[in-house]
Structures are given as C-alpha cells and as structure tokens.
C-alpha cells in the first residue's frame, strides 16, 4: 500500500436510522428465538401445574403403582402398566428395527450401486413422512389380522415355552404395536445412520483397504467404530419417536389399562392412555393422573432427545469440519 495516502479505516457509510432499525430487528428475532426456548418450559409448567392433584395424592408412588382403576368406588391410579407397555413396545421396535435400519444404511453407503443410492435413500426417508394415523389404519386392517392368523400362532408354537407368547392371539396387542413402531422408527434410524456412515473420512477407509482388508472388513474395522456414536444417536432418536408415538399405537395395541402378562396382552402406552382417556376422564383425579403420566412421557422424551442430539451434533459437526 502506498505509505503516503492517509490511512483511513474502512467504515460503512452511515444510513439514517440505521442504529435503531437494526436494534428493533435484533429485538424481534431475539424475541422469537427466546420464544422457542420458552415454549418447552411453558409445556413443562402447564403439565406440572395440572398434574398437581395426582402428585399430591400419590407422590412418586404413582411411578410404582401397578393398578389403574377408574371405578368411582375404588379410584386408584398407578402408571406402571403404561410405563411398562411404553418401554416394551419401544424395545420391540428397536429389536426389530435396529438391525434392518443399520443393514439398509450399510447397503446404501457401501454396497449399493451408485445410481441406486440416492433414490433408494429418498424412498426410505419417505417412509418417515407418512402420517402415523395412516400406519395405524394399515396396522388395524392388515398387519393386525396377519399377526393374528400367521405370526402369533407360529410364535406361540415355537416360543410358547418361554411364557412370553401365550394368551389370546388377537392381533391387537403389545406385539403388533411394537411391530408397527419398528416400521415407523426404521426410516429415522436408517437415514441418520446413513448420514454418519457417509461422514467417515475416506482416508480411514483407504487405510484399511491398503492393509488388505476386504469390503466387509473395511466396514467392520474402519467404518462402524468411527460411526458408532452417530449410529447410537440415531437409534436413540428412533427410540424417542417410538416412546411418544400415539395414533399408530392407539389403533393397534388394544387399549387395556392393566399390566401386560405376555406379548399377546392388550395394553396401553402413556400416549395411547392420553389419547383415549384425557377428554373423557371420570373426574379431576383421573384427569390429573393422566397429565402426570404425560409429564413422565415429556421428561423421558426430553432426556432421550437431549442425549441423541448431543451425540449427533458432535459426530456430524466434527465431520463437517466446521463450527456450524
């Protein structure tokens, strides 16, 4: 630079009113941003105040109460049947869904022909866009009867000795709800696992290849360990979806307020309890108990999502090499 020219610091030209319009704009967008954070606290606050009656009646005993009886003569509300069914159906969903999701994610990132990867990945993601009430409808009309006539008798014949596959084979039960949930969580787990698997650095794979690893050995030694926490995060995210899924479960689980005795038991998850009983609760105590159950569901889903997001943010951020 020519040392003779007087050094003038580059300054943006002044505009009339620039200061306060920018400030107003900042205020508006900051308000909206804070509103998003406020929303989650508002939801929690309303549920806490409305579950107060049940909380003061049962305290934390609600979490271990195994009976839910709405008859006016003997009102008693305990959340265990719903917590149990929520966990069992979600567990079934993951046991069935995880291997299929991971397998399909591996297929799409490592083995499928290149021209197939994009379209097939899109189709799997489209599965996630279908409304849950449509899954429930399909589960009610097609999956349920198929479970009743084909899958459940077979399970009873070969696995009946375990004690978990006994009872009436109705097709509207905990198992069917779990299978529907599996179908619904697979796209979530598959799509995000695929993203984290695709984020494995090429050098990592080339290093394994240079040591003479076969394709499967590259996958097993170079890709899966690297993508492990991302795949784990994806699975937890799928779990979160399964725990809170409402319509599909409500339409296939049979809606029965008691502890399950086998996979063929009719049941009720926390979300189906809310869907079925919130608007026609018999009195303030039942209403409050349902909201209390909803509060438990909220707490579980927030915890699950925080864990999943922390895992995924770290994995995907590091791989993008930026601080986005």
């Amino acid at each position, binding site marked *: 630079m020519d040392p003779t020219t007087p050094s003038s610091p580059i300054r943006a030209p002044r505009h009339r009113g620039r200061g306060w319009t920018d400030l107003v704009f900042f205020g508006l967008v900051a308000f909206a941003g804070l509103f998003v954070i406020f929303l989650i606290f508002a*939801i929690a606050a309303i549920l806490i105040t409305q579950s107060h009656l049940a909380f003061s009646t049962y305290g934390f005993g609600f979490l271990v109460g195994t009976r839910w009886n709405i008859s006016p003569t003997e009102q008693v509300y305990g959340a265990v049947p719903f917590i149990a069914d929520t966990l069992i159906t979600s567990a079934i969903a993951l046991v069935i869904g995880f291997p299929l999701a991971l397998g399909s994610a591996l297929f799409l990132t490592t083995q499928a022909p290149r021209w197939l990867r994009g379209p097939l990945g899109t189709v799997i993601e489209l599965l996630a866009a279908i*409304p849950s009430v449509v899954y429930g409808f399909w589960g009610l009309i097609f999956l349920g009867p198929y479970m009743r006539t084909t899958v459940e008798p077979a399970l009873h014949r070969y696995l009946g000795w375990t004690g978990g596959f006994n009872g009436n084979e109705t097709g509207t039960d905990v198992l069917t709800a779990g299978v529907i949930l599996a179908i619904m969580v697979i796209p979530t787990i598959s799509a995000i696992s695929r993203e984290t698997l695709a984020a494995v650095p090429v050098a990592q794979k080339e290093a394994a290849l240079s040591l003479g690893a076969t394709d499967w050995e590259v996958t097993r030694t170079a890709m899966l360990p690297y993508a492990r926490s991302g795949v784990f995060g994806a699975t937890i995210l799928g779990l979160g979806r399964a725990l809170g899924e409402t319509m599909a479960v409500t339409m296939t689980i049979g809606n029965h307020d008691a502890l399950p005795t086998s996979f063929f038991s009719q049941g009720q998850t926390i979300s189906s309890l809310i869907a079925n009983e919130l608007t026609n609760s018999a009195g303030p105590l039942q209403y409050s108990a349902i909201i209390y159950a909803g509060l438990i569901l909220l707490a579980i889903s927030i915890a699950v999502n925080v864990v999943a997001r922390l895992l995924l943010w770290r994995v995907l951020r590091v791989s993008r090499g930026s601080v986005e």
Partner: protein
Amino acid sequence: MSAITAACAIAILIPLGDIIYQAALLGGPTLSFSVLTAGLPQPCSVPVNGVPCAVGGIGPALQGTGILVGLAALVSVPIGLAAAIFAVEYRGRFLGTAISFTADVLTGVPSVIAGVFIYAYFVIYDPALVFSVITGTLALSVIMIPIVTRTCEEALRTVPHAVREAALALGIPKWRTTLQIVVVSALPAILTGILLSVMRAAGEAAPLLFTAFGSRLGFEGFNNPIEALPLLIYNFAESASNNWIHLAWAAALILIILILITNILSRLTIARMVRRMRGE
C-alpha cells in the same frame, strides 16, 4: 454380507409398498371430485330398502385441514423464521446454539404432548374454547414452530458468507441484508421447508383429538370444533360401516399423495439450490 444388507433394504420397503398399494386399491375407486367436496355421509354398510349406501365425501375434513394448517402456518412461520434468523445471523452467541438445540429437542417431543399442553391451558384459562379451531391451530403451531425453525436455519446456512459480507460492505444495514438478501437467496429452501412442516402438521391426528376435536359439519366459526383429515381417518377406521371405511382410505390416499409430492418436490428444490450455492 451385501446380500444380507440388500435384504434389509428390501424388507423395509415392503410395508411402504403395501401401505401405498392398499390405500390406492381401497381409496382410489372412492376418490372423485365430488368426494372431495361432499359432506360426511350417514354410516351405512348394506343397502336399506333397496336404497344403496350414500358415498358422501370428506369435504368438511379437507376444508378443516386446510383451515387448521393454514392458520398454524400463519402463526408458526413468522416465529420460526425469526428464531432461525436469530440463531444463524447472530451466531457466535451462546443463545443461537441454545435455540437450535431446543428446537431439535422440541421436534422430538411427542405430538400428543402438544395437544395436552394446549388442552390443559384452555381448560384452566378459557374452557369455552377448548374444542375449537383456535386450539387446533395452536396445537399444530406448537408442532410446526420447531420444525420451521430448524428447516429455515438449514436454509439460511446454505447462503455463503461472502453474500452477507458483500452486502454489509456496501453499507446496507444488517436487517435489510438479512431480509432482502440472505432470506431472499434462501427463499426456495425456506419455502420448501415451510411446505414440509405444513404437510407434517396436516398428517397429525394426536394433538387434534383434544383441540379441534372433529365435527360432522364444516367450518362453523373459530370458536367451534372442526373436522380434519387425520381425525376422520382415526374415527372412521374403527367404524363398522363400509362407506365410512372407504372414505377413510380415500382420505389416507389423499394425505399420502400430498405428502409424497411435497417431499419429492422439496428434495429436488433443495438439491438444486445447494448445487447453485456451491457454484456448480
């Protein structure tokens, strides 16, 4: 190994294929222009006195879904877009990250909880409005706000930094740079993101069970309950009347078609936009 993973990929396509096939098979023949507009019929399975069952239509549900998601978009798009602007354009601040994170967690909160939240709030403060267009709109807004926030954030991030710097270097104030340059550049992606969240809300039944509630009639004012497509599917699916079940399939088919079209279109738009931004 590749045989096993390929089998996994094929296995998970079977339910999708069957859902679309059954909806087309059972809902397709019912679908016609008059079905889209006609009112809900009386339940009927077999002809009575030689009079065949009325086909009826899903007019009130289609109208209700349109009203509910339209109003919910009016509520959630300004809030979601503004929150995204704050998170992206004022980045570097801790709050921006906190907003993205909260929005991510909120999208994972079960949609039924959004319904419970609005229902419980109105039970306390305005019981007369508990089952109404207003509460239905608010419940859907609670679901849409975090989704709009996240999709708008992703859209704004595709705009290169150089664009902002060039505008600021010309002395254009930050708010005009943001609204007239950054947001406009990202507009295709923002619009598709909004469209996707609208379609997501259009398919939600759980939050509407305790808010919009459903109605056999069409729109009767903002203070009254209203029907919606997913509510109709839920209520008619479990009925024993053939004409209701057929209408439920028709409604499911309409939702599936709308959702698949918007999803595919938005993917194409976003892919094209990302390519353009990279200068390819």
